[in-house]
């Protein structure tokens, strides 16, 4: 591959998160390098989604800090995260079911819209020009994800696998530098998984997007990621390239099971 993994762009330092007495994350540190595919794995309830929510500021950790491109954030929030170029998809698809695919993906451009509400409502002058430019960008995403045939279909009528793809499309419309994927392949059949893998690798390869993903399918994780973090009961028990993780005895007993 020609892409080169660069410097650390996202560094999580000693993050701890608790909901009342429940410790979701305990003293977790790991980093993400530019252009890499970084996976977070772990059994159910290990704190994977919490970790992702901390990164894009949905949850605020009680301790620890996030360093994004050298800037320290004790408190991240979703708006700041989005402005800093972090976008994400959701485990349980969070699309607007009644809206068409193109409109859903268009919402991903929201942060980049500069004209005011009045001009947009009138759809006049600069607002119109701007919308055309955004629409062109959205069409590129549609072309990239090969979903031209469902462009105008309401999302609620699509099969699950395609909805996941639209969800990814919306995240891509933001032109993110870091993309967070929460179980992008959950509930998919083999063919859909293959397609999704292909798209994730293509995003990473063509746009150089850094990707942090949570995934249950071990085969997928080991195939596509550069480095893997393993969580168990809110603690980090392994970190390294897929081979190192696979041979780490603690990881094997906690997650992969004796069979592997």
């Amino acid at each position, binding site marked *: *591959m020609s892409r080169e993994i660069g410097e650390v762009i996202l560094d999580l330092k000693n993050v701890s998160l608790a909901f009342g007495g429940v410790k979701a994350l305990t003293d977790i540190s790991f980093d993400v390098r530019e252009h890499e595919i970084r996976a977070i794995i772990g059994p159910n309830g290990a704190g994977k989604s919490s970790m992702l929510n901390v990164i894009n500021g949905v949850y605020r950790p009680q301790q620890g800090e996030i360093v994004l491109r050298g800037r320290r954030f004790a408190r991240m929030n979703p708006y700041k995260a989005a402005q800093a170029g972090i976008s994400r998809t959701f485990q349980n698809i969070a699309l607007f079911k009644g809206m068409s695919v193109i409109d859903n993906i268009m919402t991903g451009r929201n942060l980049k819209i500069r004209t005011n509400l009045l001009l947009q409502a009138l759809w006049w002058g600069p607002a119109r020009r701007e919308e055309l430019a955004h629409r062109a960008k959205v*069409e590129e995403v549609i*072309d990239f994800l*090969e979903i031209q*045939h469902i*462009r105008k279909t309401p999302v609620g009528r699509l099969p699950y696998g395609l909805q996941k793809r639209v969800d990814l499309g919306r995240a891509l419309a933001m032109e993110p530098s870091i993309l967070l994927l929460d179980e992008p392949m959950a509930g998919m059949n083999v063919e859909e998984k293959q397609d999704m893998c292909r798209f994730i690798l293509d995003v990473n390869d*063509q746009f150089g997007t850094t990707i942090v993903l949570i995934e249950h399918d071990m085969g997928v994780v080991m195939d596509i990621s550069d480095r893997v973090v393993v969580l168990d009961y809110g603690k980090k028990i392994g970190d390294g390239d897929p081979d190192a993780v696979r041979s780490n005895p603690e990881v094997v007993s906690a997650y992969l099971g004796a069979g592997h």
Partner: protein
Amino acid sequence: MPELASTQALDTFPRLLFHHAQVRASKTAMREKDLGIWQCWTWLEVAAEVRALACGLAEMGFTRGENLAIVGDNRPRMYMMMAAVQCLGGVPVPLYQDAVANELLFVLLDGEIRFAFVEDQEQVDKVLEIQAQLPHLEHVFYDDARGMRHYTQAFIHDVRELMAMGKIHHRNHPDLLAEAIANGHADDVSVMLYTSGTTGKPKGVRLTHRAFIAAAQGGVDFDDLTDSEDILSYLPMAWVGDHLFSYAQAMVAGFTINCPESAETVMNDLREIGPTYYFAPPRVFENLLTQVMIRMEDASRVKQKMFHYFMAVARRCGAEILDRRPVGLADRLRYALGRVFVYGPLKNVLGMSRIRVAYTAGAAIGPDLFRFYRSIGINLKQLYGQTETCAYVCLQPDGQIKFDSVGRPAPGVEVRIAENGEILVKGAMLLKEYYRRPDATAEAINADGYFMTGDAGLFDDDGHLKIIDRAKDVGKLANGAMYAPNYIENKLKFFQHIKEAVVFGDRRTMVCAFVNIDIGAVGNWAERRGIAYSGYTDLAAKPEVYGLIEECIEQVNRELVGEGVLGDSQIHRFLILHKELDPDDDELTRTRKVRRNFVAEKYAVLIEALYAGRQSQFIETAVKFEDGRQGKVAADLVIRDVRTFPLARKAA
């Protein structure tokens, strides 16, 4: 435009192209939907791109008379490449884009291909797979750069590089292209199309500029086509029909070709473009109708009632109104109302509102299907022809449509019926030769210069040609009665629940059949009756489905009884196959025609079981998946007997 001296006759495609670039420079020649927008090329722009491509090829060392392979979906640049190759006196060889690597191998070797132009990464990968076996291959150009960044092989180029090179070349040698076009001759080969190979290895059919322009001009005059037609180009470029309609006729008449965004969006694109001139094989019309019927079943009561009422009106008088025959005033009024409420909206949904002329060919079309489209006011007609005749032998004239014939011989075509019933044709549109197969050429064209089509047919009293079957397929039953398998299969396939059928009976005591159900139609039928199924194999084995198919076959038997000599061909026993016949398993050709002998060999046990009178038979079959993996499908197939009807024999 320096490429075209005004003294030259417009008798080659490059000359036609540069002629259009002069006389209708700013008119749209091609459209393609890309990034959600219909991108347009005027004739002038097309000419400029063709010039760049041609000069680029010249720079790369492409020589006169050489073949160039073109593999991909219908894209403007693919058509432009054809014209560019023809400018240099070369021969474009379009190939089926869904062919697997090994199928490409044969043609690329046979054509000694040095240059190939392919659409995208998928096609490049196929070529790379077989590259070691292709000693001639020197350059591969691709159109779509997506995913191509990591291909470092020196012989793979972006077509844009070729065009950039061509522009420089043209600046340095401004006269080269004009000379190349001036050196072209109407009797040069303009294109090589490989026959689908229902029989043996594919053969390269070499057709000249003169032949294709004659066929295209004939068709254009016949239907009064103008330069304002719009056609949707979505059928494989390797197929003679697409080459005639989307390339040759567009070049002759100067109309616009429209390339869909992708294979999945064809229906949408059809609706957006609203073509005025349309071509589709019967199965496309059939799929459309099936979709309409399925959606109608889900519609509200009122809409259903309205639909059925007005369709009954249309069946009664629609075709007559289209043919301008006398129809009573009451029916005319009802039909006019129907046009407002049903036919108009329906045509709009089908993308057929603007159609002036629509053609179908390639296989027999069911009379009900044909009547349906004509009755709602779509001027659907049949034509007859083959690759060797530029798909131009017979056409149905407006107002003289018969469901069971393919029309009169087209202008400039001479048709004769040989003594054995075979159809013979002669005219300017005939092939020059089969590529490097003088034996096959000699076999196909007789001493009087007639091409032997291999089809059996007859003229009716009005001089319309009726096709019965492939001449070599027409056989005899054990009792000596005539047996025409395709004729029977087509009757079966006209039922919406039957997708494919293969009948056996030559030199046997009775006729038996294999059936493939149509998973869409039968699946819907099953859902309505609360029959649960897990997939094709499961659904095909349901006793209810057997019952459904049995009814269809019984009806065919009833029809056959009334058709004299064919009455002995009633189907006695049948089974429903456990898998769909598939071109990937070599059971169908790429144009989806059954390879009868191959199927008979592969499923010999089943045929034996049919004739041995067994009630069921176990079979296991290897299948190839699209990604190249292999798998197995096994099933215990039920065999059923069907009711046959006694023949009303002439009293002795």
